């Protein structure tokens, strides 16, 4: 038994090595970010900084902050609107089955997996025609619509676990469909809302494809701005590292503080919700 216990401790070696692998990019972003300009050199990129300097972060923030603000203005409404729509869709689809609802469901789900290249040309044409091309509103609309499948699915799965008797009871008391939703279901939907809001926040914040074809320089969100910053020869790599950290920070904070909800969203994405 003792031997088995000691051998078990050996398992920490691969676990530790894997942790190093996952942390290497973080280490490089932070170590480089905190070096002073005079200290930065590719030759010494693995060395720790001699002190904490904020030069890189200040310069990166200077370049990225308008775009981070664009991201915020895009992500907040997109996440809220698509969550609300997902909630009422999920409610109706799970509690009020009508004819054809089991044909509709797979059709909605498929929308979650399509490669967006297959709808990109019509999307751009459509946005041009309604005058939303190059605007943040256009990007919000896009994320709301293509977010509907996953938000509907997550709420559907959540509401399916809530016993029908609960709603039956409120109906006997004379509450209609909307009142039952408002007074019975909504108050217990908070966990599902957190999962869906986080999921939509993360995927819209991290999106690049829609942003790069639908926005212009004024309205670039942070992913597009960061990518262009990395592609330019003028901006030093140390500023790019600091910028990458800034661009990752909001979703990273969400992950650190609300990790369990994040994980549940991930699993819903694999249809295992």
């Amino acid at each position, binding site marked *: 038994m003792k031997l088995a216990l000691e051998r078990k401790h050996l398992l*920490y070696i*691969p676990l530790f090595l894997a942790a190093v692998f996952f942390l290497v*990019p973080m280490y*490089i972003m932070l170590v480089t970010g905190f070096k002073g300009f005079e200290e930065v050199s590719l030759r010494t990129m693995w060395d720790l900084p001699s002190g904490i300097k904020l030069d890189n972060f200040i310069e990166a923030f200077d370049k990225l902050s308008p775009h981070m603000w664009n991201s915020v203005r895009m992500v907040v409404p997109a996440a809220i609107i698509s969550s609300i729509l997902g909630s009422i869709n999920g409610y109706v689809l799970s509690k009020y089955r009508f004819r054809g609802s089991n044909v509709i469901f797979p059709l909605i789900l498929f929308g979650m997996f399509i490669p967006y*290249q297959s709808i990109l040309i019509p999307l751009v044409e459509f946005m041009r025609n309604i005058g939303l091309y190059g605007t943040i509103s256009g990007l919000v609309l896009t994320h709301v619509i293509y977010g509907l499948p996953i938000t509907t699915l997550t709420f559907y799965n959540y509401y399916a676990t809530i016993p029908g008797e609960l709603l039956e009871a409120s109906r006997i008391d004379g509450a209609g469909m909307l009142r039952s939703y408002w007074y019975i279901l909504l108050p217990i939907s908070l966990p599902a809302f957190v999962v869906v809001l986080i999921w939509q926040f993360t995927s819209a914040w991290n999106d*690049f494809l829609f942003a790069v074809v639908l926005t212009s320089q004024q309205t670039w969100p942070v992913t597009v701005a960061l*990518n262009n910053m990395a592609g330019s020869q003028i901006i030093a790599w140390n500023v*790019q590292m600091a910028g*990458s950290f800034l661009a990752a920070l909001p*979703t990273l904070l969400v992950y650190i503080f609300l990790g369990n909800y994040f994980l549940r969203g991930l699993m819903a994405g694999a249809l295992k919700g």
Partner: protein
Amino acid sequence: MISRGERLLSLAIVTPSMLAIAIFVYGFILWSTRVSVSAWKGLLPDYSFVGLDNFKNLLFNDPRFIIDIRNTVIFTVVFVGGSLIFGLTLAILLDQGLRGESFFRSLYLFPMAISFIVTGVVWRWLMNPAMGSRMSGLNLLFDNMGLDFLINRWYTTPNWGIASIALAAIWQMSGYVMAMYIGGLRGIPHELREAARVDGASEPQIYRHIVLPMLWPVTLSALIILGHISLKVFDLIVAVVGKQLPLDVPAIYMWQTTFDGYFFGRGAAIGILLLISVAVLIIPYLIYTLRQENQL
């Protein structure tokens, strides 16, 4: 009983969303299909019908698309294989009831919260291919540690450069695979393993004959999720190397030929080919999953 009024109300509530999906997903797919069989080249729409010419040119007459298919295959094999093996290994290690398990689990999963663009920008410097006095990144680290045999040209390796992008993708996604497997492992009844142990089975035997076969549905899900991600891979490559022919994939080709080159017909054809390849993977999976759920 649900009243007629409520039935209508429920229809009225879901209709706008369903209409939006019908138009923006299915309507747009049809529209793209129409563009893919048109001669549209240049800024002004041109819907004159050319049959399957755009598809034929891509599949039989376009060296760039051949490179794309080759790159997609290499990327898929390395990325899917690597993530599955690595993810499963991590899940099994974490399944041994060690202290600190949840700490390691959260650590391995954090890259999922980050965008492919951030991952790409950082890995671009980690995989810096410069040699000699300009050596940096992982090559420099290997050099300092005396692991010279690991030094390589990363994404500038002829023909196989795309595999290094898959490495960055493994970094990002294997924690996700691990989480899926942990879910699967928790679903295996404890008594089953206990019974095998009582019968004298060794730990490796238990994994080989009981645990792994029971994890097959998880493996299938992971294969399909990862497979469809690798068919769509786009931002990660753009962030590491930009638009470079040796590391081209269909998604980048579509983007560039359409929005930089105004070859709308060809761009739409690439989009439709991507859609077909994803559909071949996803549709059977959706049917299978939904059937299973209905049976429960």
